[in-house]
C-alpha cells in the first residue's frame, strides 16, 4: 500500500461535498467551543456526541468527531491566554507566556500566533500523516492476530510506563479498565462473566458510559467543589500579530511540528505531555530564554504548534494499526467500531475512499479553524467567560443524554454516574485516567486477538516470541515496563504524566 495522489484528490472531492463540509464546520465549531470551555474537553464531547451521531452515515459522523478533537486544540489556547485558565491540560504551557503577553496588552498577537502556529503545525503534521499512515498500514497488512496482540500489549505498557511516579496506579487503572470491559457476555462464546447473576450486567458495561463518567461528570464534580471563580478580563489592544512576532515564532512553529508529530505517534504521549517537551526545547534553543515565562511569543507558538502536531500524529497509529494513542482517539476508535468499521490496513484497502476523505477533511478543517479563530477570537474569549454554575449543570445534562442514547438504557446512565464519582476519586488520589480509557476500549480486540493467536499456536503462548514482528513488540513492551520501573525508582519522572485530564 502506498500513498497515491488520485486517492487523496478523491478524498478531497468527497470531503468537499456540502454535507461533509457542513459537518466539518460543525465539528470545528463544537471542538473550538469545548476547547475554550474549561471543564469539558474533546474526550467528553466526542463520547457524549457519539451515540447521537449514529443517525448519520459513517463519513460525516467521523469527519465531525475528528474535527472536534483537533478543533479543541485550537480552542484551548484562547482561555489560557485571555484569562490564564487553560481549557485543556495541553494549554498549560500556552498560558505561561500567553497570559503574560495578554497582561502587557499583547493578547491579540498572542492569540493570532496561537491560531497561526496551530494551523502551520497542524498542516505540516497532516502531510506527515498523509504519507506515513498508508506506509505503516502497508506494513501492518502482514500482521496476524499475534502481532496485533503484541502491538496492543506494547501500547498499553507504554501508557502505563508513562504514568511516571504512579506506575503502580497506572497498572491498576489498566487492569480495572480491562476487567470492566469483560463484564457481560463473552463476545466469543456468549458465556456470562462477572455478572453476579444480574440481568443489567449481562448487557455489559458500555465503554462510552465509562468515558462520559470518568471525563465529563468527574471533571464537573472537581469543579463543583470550588466556589465560582472570579474571572477578570485583560484589555486587548491590537488584534493581529506583527511581522516581528512572526519572525520570532516561525522557527518555533516548525520545530514544534516535528517534535509534536513524532511524539504523537507514540501511545500515551498525549498533547498534555508533548506541549511541555516542545516548550522546553524551544526555551533551550532560544536566543532570549530569559523572556520565557515573561511573555515570549515563540513560547506560545511552540506550545500551540506541538499541541496540534501531536493531535494529527496520533491519527497515524489509529489509521494504520487501529491503535489509539490517547483517550480522545480511543473514543474516536469507538466511533469507528459503532459503525462496524475497524481502522487499520484492511480499512485502507477495502474502504480507501472513507479513509482518504477523513484525511482530506482534516486539511479542510484546519483551514476552517484558522478562519474561525483569527477573526472571531474575541467572541470565543467571551464564551469562555460563561460561569461554571451554568456550564456544570448543562454538562451533566448532556452527559445523561449521551449515556442514555448509547442503548436507551437507564443502566448506562447509572454506570456513567458511578464512573463519574470514580473519576473524581481517581483525580484526587492521583490515579491516571488515560490507561483506563485505553484499556476499556481495547479490551475486546485484545482478547479476540489473544484467542485467535492461541488457536494458531494450538495453545502455546510462545507464538508471541517466535514470530519476529510480534517478538519485537513484546520485547519493546518489556523494555518499556523496565524503563517505567527505572523511572519509578530513580524518581526522574515528575514531569512525565501521560494523563490528559479533560
Amino acid at each position: 500500500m502506498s500513498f497515491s495522489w488520485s486517492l487523496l484528490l478523491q478524498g478531497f472531492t468527497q470531503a468537499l461535498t456540502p454535507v461533509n463540509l457542513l459537518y466539518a464546520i460543525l465539528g470545528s465549531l463544537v471542538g473550538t467551543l469545548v476547547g475554550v470551555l474549561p471543564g469539558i474537553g474533546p474526550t467528553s464531547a466526542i463520547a457524549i456526541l457519539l451515540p447521537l451521531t449514529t443517525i448519520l452515515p459513517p463519513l460525516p459522523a467521523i469527519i465531525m468527531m475528528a474535527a472536534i478533537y483537533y478543533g479543541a486544540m485550537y480552542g484551548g489556547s484562547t482561555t489560557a491566554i485571555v484569562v490564564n485558565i487553560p481549557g485543556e491540560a495541553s494549554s498549560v504551557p500556552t498560558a505561561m507566556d500567553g497570559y503574560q503577553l495578554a497582561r502587557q496588552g499583547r493578547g491579540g498577537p498572542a492569540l493570532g500566533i496561537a491560531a497561526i502556529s496551530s494551523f502551520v503545525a497542524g498542516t505540516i503534521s497532516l502531510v506527515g500523516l498523509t504519507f506515513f499512515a498508508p506506509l505503516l498500514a502497508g506494513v501492518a497488512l502482514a500482521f496476524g492476530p499475534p502481532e496485533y496482540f503484541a502491538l496492543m500489549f506494547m501500547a498499553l505498557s507504554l501508557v502505563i510506563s508513562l504514568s511516571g511516579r504512579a506506575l503502580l496506579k497506572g497498572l491498576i487503572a489498566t487492569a480495572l479498565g480491562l476487567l470492566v470491559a469483560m463484564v457481560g457476555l463473552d463476545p466469543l462464546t456468549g458465556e456470562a462473566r462477572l455478572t453476579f447473576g444480574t440481568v443489567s450486567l449481562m448487557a455489559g458495561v458500555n465503554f462510552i458510559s465509562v468515558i462520559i463518567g470518568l471525563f465529563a461528570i468527574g471533571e464537573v464534580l472537581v469543579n463543583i467543589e470550588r466556589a465560582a471563580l472570579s474571572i477578570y478580563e485583560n484589555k486587548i489592544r491590537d488584534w493581529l500579530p506583527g511581522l516581528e512576532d512572526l519572525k520570532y515564532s516561525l522557527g518555533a512553529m516548525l520545530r514544534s511540528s516535528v517534535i509534536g508529530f513524532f511524539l504523537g505517534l507514540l501511545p500515551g504521549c498525549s498533547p498534555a505531555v508533548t506541549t511541555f517537551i516542545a516548550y522546553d526545547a524551544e526555551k533551550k534553543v532560544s536566543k532570549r530564554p530569559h523572556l520565557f515565562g515573561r511573555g515570549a511569543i515563540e513560547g506560545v507558538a511552540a506550545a500551540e504548534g506541538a499541541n496540534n502536531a501531536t493531535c494529527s500524529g496520533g491519527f497515524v497509529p489509529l489509521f494504520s494499526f487501529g491503535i489509539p494513542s490517547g483517550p480522545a482517539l480511543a473514543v474516536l476508535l469507538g466511533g469507528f467500531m459503532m459503525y462496524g468499521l475497524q481502522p487499520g490496513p484492511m480499512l485502507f484497502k477495502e474502504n480507501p475512499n472513507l479513509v482518504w476523505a477523513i484525511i482530506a477533511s482534516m486539511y479542510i478543517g484546519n483551514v476552517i479553524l484558522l478562519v474561525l479563530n483569527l477573526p472571531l477570537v474575541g467572541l470565543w474569549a467571551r464564551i469562555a467567560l460563561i460561569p461554571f454554575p451554568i456550564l456544570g449543570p448543562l454538562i451533566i445534562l448532556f452527559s445523561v443524554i449521551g449515556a442514555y442514547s448509547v442503548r436507551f438504557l437507564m443502566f448506562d446512565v447509572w454506570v456513567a454516574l458511578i464512573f463519574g464519582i470514580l473519576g473524581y476519586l481517581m483525580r484526587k488520589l492521583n490515579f491516571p485516567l488515560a490507561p483506563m480509557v485505553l484499556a476499556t476500549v481495547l479490551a475486546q480486540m485484545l482478547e479476540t486477538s489473544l484467542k485467535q493467536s492461541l488457536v494458531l499456536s494450538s495453545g502455546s503462548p510462545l507464538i508471541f516470541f517466535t514470530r519476529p514482528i510480534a517478538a519485537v513488540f513484546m520485547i519493546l513492551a518489556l523494555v518499556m515496563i523496565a524503563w517505567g520501573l527505572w523511572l519509578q525508582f530513580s524518581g526522574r519522572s515528575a514531569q512525565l504524566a501521560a494523563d490528559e485530564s479533560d
Partner: protein
Amino acid sequence: MFMRTQRAADMVSGAILAALGLLSLVASLNISGVTGEHLHPRTLPYLLSLVIFITGLALLLGGWRYRGEEKIIAWPDREGWKRILISLASIVVYLFLLEPLGFTLSSFLLLTFLIWYLGRYNLILIILMDLATVVTIYYLFYRLLGLNFPVGPLGW
C-alpha cells in the same frame, strides 16, 4: 480526617482494590465455559482480578511502609463537600425521576435547582434560560433526531 494524606489514601484504596480483586477472583472462578477452548472465557478475568488483588496489596503495603514527607491530598473544604454531595444527591434524584416524569420536565427541574444552588442567580432568569434549553433539546433530539427519550405522563 479520613484519607487526608496520600499515604493514608494509598492504604485505603489499596485495601479496597485488593478486596475488589478478591471478589472478582471468586466471581471469575464461577464463569463456566466450553472445554477444549484454547482461551477459556474465565482466563483473562481471572488473571486481571489477580493483578488487581496483588497490585492493591502492593499499594497498601507501599503506603504502610512509606516514611517520606506527608503529602496532603487536596480534598475540598466543608463547603466544597457540601456542594458536591448536594449536587450528587440532586443528580441521583434526577435519574430516579427521569422515567416517571419524562426527560424534559425532570431535566428542567435539575437545571433549575442546580444552577440556582451553585450560582444563586435571579430565579426568574434561570427558569427562562432552562425553559429555552430543555425546549430546544426536546425539539432537536426528540422531534428532529427521533431519539427515544423517556416521556412523562403528558407525552414530553
